[in-house]
Structure formats: C-alpha cells, structure tokens
C-alpha cells in the first residue's frame, strides 16, 4: 500500500554533517503529505534512505540501485554530492526510468547528464551563484581578491564560475588555490595565498569543514581584511565556532529568495518540528520531496512512466499556485483536473529544459554575530 520515494544522501563522508538536516527537510514534506490524507486515494508515502558516502561512486550507484531495484521506489530525492548524483543517475536512475530530484548537487555537470528528462534539481547550478558573488563584490568596489576553494565538485564548480565572471568584469584574481577537505591546518595554503598580496579572501568551502578552519586561521594570521563566502559558509554555527569578532563584516551569498511566500510557510513548519529552516539545502530537499508527491498524485498511479511530464506540469506555471504544506488543496485541484504550479520553500522551482531551476541568490553579511540577509543580487 505504501508508495516509496527514496532518499539518497551522503550520510557518511565529507558532507555527513549536512545530510541529517537535508533528510529532515524531505521528511517534513512526507509527514505533511501523510498527515493530510496521503496520496492516490489514501495510500501513505514513505521514504527509504540510502547512503552514497558522497565520494564513492561505487557505493552511490549501489545504494541507488537498491532503492530503484529492491525498494522499488517511484522516484528519488537525491543524491547530494554531484558525483554521487551523476553516478546514481547513470547507473540506476536512468536505466531504471526513475525520476531523481537533487536538492544539493550544484555542479554544472549535472545539467549535462544524458538523462531522458529524468534528472532534476531544486538548487541552482553553481554557475548562478558564482556569477552573483562576482557581481556583488565588484559592485562593492572590491577589485582584487584571492580565492581558495574546496577541491571537490562544489568548490571547484563555484570557483570556476566566480573567477570567470569576476575576471571578465574587470576584477583581478591574485591567487586561486584549491585546498583539500579535512586537514587540521591550512596555514600553508593561506600563506601561499597571502603571498599574492590580496587583502580580500574568498572562501568557497563548507562551514563545518575546511571553511571554518580557513576562516579562523585567516583571521589569526592577520593577512586579510575582508572575508567572503558562499552558501556553504552560511550558518550561525560558523559564527559561534570562530567568534563574532573574527567574522564581523564577512560577506556571503546563498541560494534562495527571501521574498517568496513559501519560505515563510516552510520556516514556520520547520520550526514546529525543531528543524532549523536555514539548514543548508533543507528547504530544497523539502521542495524536491513535495514536488515528487505532487507529481505522483498528478500522474495518477505509482508508475514510473511519464512521471517526469507530471513533474514538469505541477512545478511550472501556469496553474493555481500551491505553497509548501498545501497538500490537501493541491490534491483537490488535481482531482478536479486543474493545473497547478508549486511555488516552493527555496524558490519557485520552474524547471528549464535541462531540469535546472533558475538561480536566485541573496546577499548576506555577518553583523552583531549573526548572518543577516540583505536582499537579492541581480
């Protein structure tokens, strides 16, 4: 009787500390669906999980395979790391005709999978954020920076996009240095960067990984006057760990729009279940899961066939707007044969031809020991 939507996450490995929040986001959607009467005439939605380890393609495809072939899921939320997503899609998802929506894979490469229209994501590609960050810095008059990025698909994709845009628009990247995850000490990397003479340091990494250490050591070294980060660095945990004094004035960006209604609705629902609404990618995961439920309902059966068409139909305009949590309303409209358009917690989730969503990037700054959202970057 259960309808299964799998969750494919990196529960172990480099983003293991982000994974629980993301899973909770998706589970919130599932519990809302079930609380509001389930789907397809009262059947319940369940969410089996599987671990990709994030870095091991073999483990990722194996886990995806288990979801696709053994659990018999209709669709999948995930994977998180781009490498894992690509491996899972190529090995299990696409051959198995399963729709996958990644809430966290930001690498531009995900767009290029030859996917029979099966792979989507609710998070903008890094290229959006990198470009936005570059424009933001230039608009603030910062014309010379040094970049250090985490040497994985996230960091490198972001750095490539940022550097290309920044240089094209007249900025100068004095140093562009990759660093590895999980080291105790990044002084050598920072020393190398500082030797370029740059005073603004752009850190493209994760807040609870290398990013934290780098920011702390950059502050300690006294070589940099301005710190800059991207979505991976956003989180009050960073401020608490490194110290407000060290981070005051740090500039950051993150995906998502503060102006859409869905964000507030989601925040309220998340707070009710003790989930930090600002947890990285939690809102995107919520959207992915909710969208899949809508698509299944729209598709009218627990079949995998034509699910991607249904997904496109429920996600994109035109149609009656559905906000996060409005499951009963959506069900009613679908039953009535009306077209709907989900406007999510993290964005309006209008998929383009490649299954990507347009990036909406906001500016953030650390003020009084907290990350504050300032507004959209255009």
């Amino acid at each position, binding site marked *: 009787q259960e309808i299964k939507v799998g969750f494919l996450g990196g529960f172990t490995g480099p983003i293991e500390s982000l994974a629980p929040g993301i899973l909770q986001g998706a589970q919130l959607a599932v519990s809302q669906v079930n609380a509001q009467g389930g789907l397809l005439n009262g059947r319940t939605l369940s969410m089996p999980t599987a671990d990709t380890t994030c870095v091991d393609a073999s483990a990722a495809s194996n886990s995806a395979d288990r979801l696709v072939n053994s659990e018999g899921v209709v669709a999948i939320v995930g994977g998180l790391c781009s490498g894992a997503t690509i491996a899972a899609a190529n090995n299990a998802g696409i051959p198995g005709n399963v729709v996958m929506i990644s809430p966290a894979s930001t690498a531009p490469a995900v767009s290029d999978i030859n996917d029979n229209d099966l792979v989507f994501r609710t998070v903008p590609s890094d290229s959006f954020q990198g470009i936005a960050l570059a424009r933001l810095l230039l608009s603030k008059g910062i014309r010379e920076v040094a970049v250090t990025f985490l040497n994985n698909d996230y960091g490198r994709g972001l750095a490539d996009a940022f550097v290309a845009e920044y240089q094209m628009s007249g900025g100068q990247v004095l140093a562009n*240095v990759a660093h590895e995850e999980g080291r*105790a000490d990044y002084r050598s990397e920072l020393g190398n960067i500082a030797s370029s003479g740059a005073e603004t340091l752009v850190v493209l990494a994760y807040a609870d990984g290398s990013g934290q250490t780098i920011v702390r050591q950059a502050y300690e070294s006294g070589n940099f006057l301005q710190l800059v980060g991207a979505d991976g660095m956003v989180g009050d945990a960073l401020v608490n760990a490194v110290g407000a004094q060290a981070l005051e004035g740090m500039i950051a960006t993150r995906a998502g729009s503060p102006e859409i209604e869905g964000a507030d609705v989601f925040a309220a629902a998340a707070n009710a279940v003790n989930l930090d609404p600002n947890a990285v990618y939690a809102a995107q995961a919520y959207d992915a899961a909710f969208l899949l439920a809508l698509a299944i309902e729209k598709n009218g059966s627990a079949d995998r066939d034509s699910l991607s068409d249904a997904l496109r139909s429920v996600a994109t305009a035109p149609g009656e707007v559905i906000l996060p949590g409005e499951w009963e309303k959506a069900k009613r409209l679908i039953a009535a044969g009306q077209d709907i358009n989900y406007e999510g917690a993290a964005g309006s989730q209008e998929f383009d031809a490649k299954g990507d969503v347009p990036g909406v990037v906001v500016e953030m700054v650390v003020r009084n020991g907290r990350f504050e959202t300032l507004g959209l970057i255009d």
Partner: protein
Amino acid sequence: MNEFIFFVNNVLISGAVSGSVYAIGAVGVTLVFSIMRFAHFAHADMMTLGAFIVLILTTLFPGVGAVVGLPTAFVLMPIAMAVTAGVAVGIDRAFYKPLRQHNVKPIVIVIASLGVTLMLQGLIRLFAGTSSRSLYVDEFKQIFRIDVPFASRPLVITEPQILLLVVTIACVVGLHYFLNKSRMGKAMRAMSDNPDLARVSGINTQTVIMVTWIIAGSLAVIAGTLLSLDVTLKPDLSFFLLLPIFAAAIVGGVGHPYGAIAGGFVVGFAETMAVFNWAVLLRPLHRAFPNLFELPANLTLVGTEYKIVVPFFILIAILVWRPTGLFKGKVI
C-alpha cells in the same frame, strides 16, 4: 623586512608548530614500536580520542582555565591523559595482548591496529558526531601580534602555539631523563632490546608494556589537544596525521625517540617550505635590481594540493639515501 616577517610567520612558526605535533606523535609511535615491535596505526586516533575527551571535560567545567590563566582545555588535559592512557592499556589488553601471546608476526598486530583505528573512528563519530569543533568553549584564543622594528607586518603567534612549543621541549627533556636515568626507563629500553631476557631478569614486562601505553597515550593526548586548540577538532583529523607521523618516525629512525623528534621537525618544515611561495623572499632583491630578472608571481615547489605527498617523498628520499633514518634506527 616585511617579507622576512612573512617568511618567519609562514615557514618558521608554521613549520615549528606542525613539526611539534608530528614530533610528539612520532615519539609515541616510535616508543610503541621499539618496545612492542609493531607500527601502531591507531596512534593518530588516540590523539583524536584524547582531544574529544578534553572537549567533553571543557564543556563540563568551562571556568577552570580562567583561574589559572591558561586555556581550560590545557588545564584539563591531564585528566584526559589519564583516561586515554587507561583506554590505551585496555585496547592493548583486549586486542594486542592475545595476539602477542600467540606469537604472531608483528605485521598481524599492525593489521589489528588498523582494525582498532577503524573501530575508534567509528566510535568517535558515533558518539561525537562529525562536525568541526573548537576546544575554546567559553573563551577565546589569545593571539599575540608582536610588532617588529622596520616592518609593518607583525609577528603572529597564538597561545596554543607557544604552549605547544614549550610542551614539546618539556616532553623531549622529560623523556630523555626518564629513558636514560630512571630504572623504569632503562627497563623499557631493555625490554625493547630483548623482551624474553627482560622477563628473565625480573623485569615485569606487563608493567613495562602498561607504562609504555600510558606514556604513548598521554603523548597522543598532548599532541591531539594542542593541535585541536591551535586549529580545530575533527574526527577525521587523525587519518591525515597518520602519514606524516609515520614518515617522521621513519625519517628519524624508528625506535629512536630523538630521531622521531628530529623527523617530526624535518617533515613539518619540509611541508611548509614545499608550499611556500619563494618569490616573496626574492621581491626585495627584485626591487633593488628591477632589470636583473623577471620575477614570477608564484615560485612554489609543489601546489598546495600536493602537500599531502610531501612527507611521503621525504620518506622515500631518506629510505633510499639512508635506510635506517637520520638517527640510526633499530630495525629495517
């Protein structure tokens, strides 16, 4: 002058700090090796374990440090040393001793220690989670910026770095006296020479092994705690320390405590120097004779992404050039 200060900050201090950590780690590894004849892969995880115990203690008693004027974590470190030493002794009893009694080849115990590594890692993650943490719970790290005449850049050194250097020196001196002058120290050397004969001479080998683990465990906690104080505490800290620590132990000559210390600093400095941008030091020269040569912006030996392999290259070079290590190691 600015460039020179930059060099001091980024190579000398940096190298000395990581060198100290490697050195203390390598001393523990080499001590276990010389007395029990196997390469203890779980040493780095004992470092993490110790640091986590310190973290727990610091969270429980955050105000202790302020009383003494030192970081709380540092003040509470002795308790963690005692606990970890106990854990180390327990691990030995549970996993290594039975194998020793079966007279297995040393390599089998090495593999067992790999197993222990994985178990410790799993446990630490299971109970402590996986995110980075700071050992400064209610306090902030003191950073000393020392102004130097003729330079606009200050010399930068932090409190834990000073502690680390001081403690390393204290450990070296203490260990020297312990091994050479004390009865137990001599018994440990005797045991490492010939365990059977040590028993026959009335040396209680169980006690010696226990003391070895106590020292090794304590040293691991010192290295782990001071490193985490200086940088950050992560469960997978240990794996990245393993290679440099073993490289340091072998470079110095396995089974040789002073060698381990020398090896630690060799590896530490080599790492920082390999990724240092030497163009910085040439810049004043270039300013003086601008037409003499063209200065590339970046003159490093290897990119920072290859830093992890630097200890290993040194290891190979030393093994080829002098297979017993800098100091004459015992076994090859």
